[in-house]
């Protein structure tokens, strides 16, 4: 018997792909192509990992934001969640289906808009090609993990914040964390409490792992463990939140 959340996943996935959403991968494909094909100064080789980093570094956050805007709040507002919860389906199953559909949409779009320009670039480039398979695969895996993280945070925010505010909140958080990171690096680099606290300002485990892989510095075991801990933390918060929210806020 198919689990309820898988049945729901198919419907949620279909719900996401409106006419606007169908056009989106093409738009991102154009942007992805610009990133790959516009030559940067002083580049003497076609470094696949670097191009992938640039592409996915742009696509994953933007596409995640696009597919996760008001993910839960919109369903509460238009009564979709209430209609579903009349059935014998747990709230966590609803959230799982919702998140899975968002993630699938994100990955379909990112793979299409991210990999296609890269493949075309590889075929037509006249520069020497730098391509390490293990590095590229590791980067793909890490960006997949990063997309999971973004979805978990956006879902959590969407349980408590209205409409597009979940995306704005994440963007604002990221900007503030970057600014604080820069401040600590420049002015408080020798302060143990500042450096220690700054590590917890934003869940950066997977991003640090990407840096380590990209620069071939070391195998980022600790960074990945941190990333997994923060991922599990936000998923736990999201599932807890969906069990707390009122699906029908109205009063007479």
């Amino acid at each position, binding site marked *: 018997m198919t689990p309820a959340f898988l049945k729901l996943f198919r419907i949620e996935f279909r719900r996401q792909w409106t006419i606007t959403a169908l056009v989106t991968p093409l738009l991102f494909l154009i942007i992805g192509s610009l990133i790959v094909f516009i030559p940067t100064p002083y580049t003497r080789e076609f470094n696949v990992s670097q191009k992938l980093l640039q592409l996915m570094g742009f696509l994953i956050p933007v596409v995640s934001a696009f597919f996760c805007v008001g993910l839960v709040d919109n369903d509460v507002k*238009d*009564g979709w969640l*209430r*209609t579903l919860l009349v059935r*014998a389906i747990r709230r966590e199953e609803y959230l799982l289906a919702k998140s899975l559909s968002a993630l699938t949409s994100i990955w379909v779009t990112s793979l299409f808009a991210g990999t296609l320009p890269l493949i075309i670039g590889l075929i037509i480039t006249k520069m020497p090609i730098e391509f390490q398979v293990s590095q590229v695969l590791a980067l793909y895996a890490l960006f997949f993990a990063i997309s999971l993280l973004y979805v978990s945070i956006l879902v959590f925010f969407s349980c408590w914040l209205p409409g597009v505010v979940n995306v704005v909140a994440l963007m604002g958080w990221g900007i503030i964390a970057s600014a604080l990171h820069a401040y600590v690096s420049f002015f408080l680099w020798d302060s143990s409490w500042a450096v220690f606290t700054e590590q917890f300002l934003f869940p950066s485990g997977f991003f640090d792992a990407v840096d380590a892989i990209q620069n071939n510095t070391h195998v980022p075991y600790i960074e990945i463990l941190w990333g997994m801990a923060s991922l599990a933390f936000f998923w736990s918060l999201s599932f807890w939140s969906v069990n707390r929210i009122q699906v029908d806020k109205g009063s007479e």
Partner: protein
Amino acid sequence: MRRKKLLPTPEILAISVQNISKTFRPRSKNPVQALKNVTFAVPKGEVVGLIGPNGAGKSTLLRILLGFLDADEGKVALFEHDPESLMARRLTGYQGDSQFRTPTLTVQTFLELHAHLLNLNGSAKDNIDTLLKEFNLSNASNFSLSSLSKGMRQKLELVLAFLGTPRLVFLDEPTASLDPPSVFELRDFLEVRKKTGVTVFFSSHNLSEVENVCDRVLFISNGAVLADYDMKKRKRGFLEKAFRTHLMEKASS
């Protein structure tokens, strides 16, 4: 040989409500007590109506019974289960007022999802077709959800409420957006369903509908259940008189 005396098994109530209260606390206004110590019970197979003036607490009570809203105090049970338990959900149907804004889903697909969630499987198609026919929505099965008129949305909600074999159905203003022919269809439909032993609890402003269909009527005002009328022996027009009486009493107090 001594025979053991069997104690009579207490009948399982479809709805059991004990002392529930609910207060809303809007940000910039004073708290509003929507329900005060409401207590009643609905046995299986009964059709119960809930009437009252605007702001009496009808929708709040309905939402609490369905588990969409948490009561501040008191207990609610549907067939002795918590309203939000999966067991209660399997036995319950609900007609509300959803927006259905999704342009990419058709009525058929939407109903098939709910049929899947009810584990109807093979019998799903027949069940859906029958209900669509009964509510005159067969021609709309390929319409997208967002293109439905208000009346068609209401009928779709009714189809959802009766999909599968619910033992308890909640209806919230079921005739609000329906044209007269559709109201008659609903009345006939409920008469037929009553005979299958399904319990129906519905809130409505349409007093004649309530009189025609209900076995019992609860009158709620200012968050309290003021009266519980057995409709089997009442004449037509009784509810209107009762309503006016309550309103005069309220005005004089």
